[in-house]
């Protein structure tokens, strides 16, 4: 086993273990904090894959914004923060079914993909992933349309949030 594989296995174990803790811990704030460590594990996976931009964006967006909002929502909506409620509601079988179906789908998708067993080509020296990503996101023959559609979606969400929260005099 190479060092990279060992690192990947350790990170994957850490991520999955934190993920299990998210769904099994009884305290909601603890679950949110375990979610932070899961997301951090994903960020480390990106870093191991040489995708430093994605790793940092993962930390900024998911830990810095979304996880903090989760914790805020839990704190502001629960009367008692040491909430020890039931772990499952009546829809648990539906969630389990969806999880199994997603896993099976991904498994078959990856098995039918020929690139799975090949080793990836080495990244050439001087390759600037950051610049490549920037060019791809703004060039018309690459991803400029999805990029702009996503930004329009975000603006619509922003306008909607302002409309919902707006206090008419």
């Amino acid at each position: 086993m190479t060092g990279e594989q060992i690192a990947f296995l350790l990170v994957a174990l850490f991520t999955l273990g934190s993920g299990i803790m998210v769904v099994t811990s009884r305290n909601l704030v603890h679950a949110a904090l375990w979610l932070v460590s899961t997301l951090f594990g994903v960020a480390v996976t990106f870093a191991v894959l040489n995708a430093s931009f994605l790793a940092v964006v993962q930390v900024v967006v998911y830990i810095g914004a979304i996880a903090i909002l989760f914790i805020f929502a839990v704190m502001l909506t629960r009367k008692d923060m040491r909430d020890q409620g039931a772990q499952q509601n009546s829809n648990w079988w539906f969630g389990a079914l969806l999880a199994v179906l997603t896993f099976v789908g991904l498994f078959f998708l990856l098995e039918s993909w020929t690139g799975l067993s090949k080793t990836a080509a080495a990244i050439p020296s001087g390759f600037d992933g950051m610049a490549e990503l920037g060019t791809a996101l703004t060039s018309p023959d690459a991803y400029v349309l999805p990029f702009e559609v996503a930004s329009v979606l975000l603006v619509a969400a922003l306008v909607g949030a302002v409309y919902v929260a707006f206090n008419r005099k």
Partner: protein
Amino acid sequence: MSFWNDPLKVAADWLLGVFTGWGMPEIAANILIGFLGVLLLITVLMVLDIFLVWVERKVVSRFQDRIGPNRVGPFGLIQPFADIIKLIIKEDTTPGGADKVVYNIAPMLSMMSVLILWAVVPLAPTILGVDLNIGVLYIIAAGAIGTLSIIMAGWSSNNKFALIGAFRQVAVMVSFEIPMLTMLLIPTVFSGSMGMNTIIEKQSIWYVFLAPLAALIFLIAAIAELGRAPFDMAEGESELVSGYNIEYSGMKFGMFYAGELLHAFTFGGFWSILFFGGYRFFGLEQVSPFLAIAIIVFKAFIGYWIIMWVKYTLLRIRIDHMLGFNWKFLTPLAFTLLMVTALMNALLAGTSTWIYISSMFLSNVLLAWIATEIARSYSRRERERVEGSKAAVLPEAAHH
């Protein structure tokens, strides 16, 4: 290549020779050398942090027309060591009903979020942790971990004051992150890179002359990120006692306190890197890397001093004013400035340096002027509305 030209590389090569001579595989030796480098950097920073306690206390006392610590050692220089001994031998208390694990992790995360920032700080052309091509975003990511530590401390203390303090602080940090990130993109537009070292290398003219408004907005956002006055609503000693760290005692409190001081110094450093040329000073940085380190530390101290100057001069701002100032004034201004700068940068490409600098400078000044005029007319209308309603109410009151 001698030790005086590239000390880090020479030391690393020498250590590699020593370790492999002991029969260690090369990869293990390299990992060990990396750890030693990190250990060295953190040790230097923590020692500097002890010194910062003295600097802060001495400077604040001068601002407040006092003498400050002057009993222990010459100029009170040994005072921070006495403080540390006191903090260490203090009883380590945990409030009843506290969430012990989270409560103990929070101060560590707080200190960590500051220390990891130094991984991307270039102290000299060759002396730097790592030249990340996303250095600018990395600052924001480290700030996200700091925000997390504050909310963890406030929640786990099982104290209403701590929780309210944490809510306020996190509200401020999350909102001021936006103008800060936008202003971090301005040096990126000028230099065409997000890496700290490239940003410094491209600054043959300090970016503060190209974008003085950006430097100012970055400083304001940095002070808010630090939670220092006038944005220290989270601390609010007259109403919240001390904010999120109220329940911490001994060295755990010391971690928060030392983390805050080092954070302020670090942002002084980032301010100098992004807008004041970092380790560059009229070519002096080429003479010796040690001189470059001296220059950047000096500039960081000037930034730190300005942050202290603001802290001990201005009064605390009310939380709704603070958030209104950010969302209604600073954020739109930052977005406009980024758009104007990017547009001007594209339009002026290929013109002579002097035209480029002067038009960039003028566009900044013009934008600042327009923004203050809009704010002024808004405040005038608001005042007229308030005074008008008062005038309408007063005769009514006299009548009764």
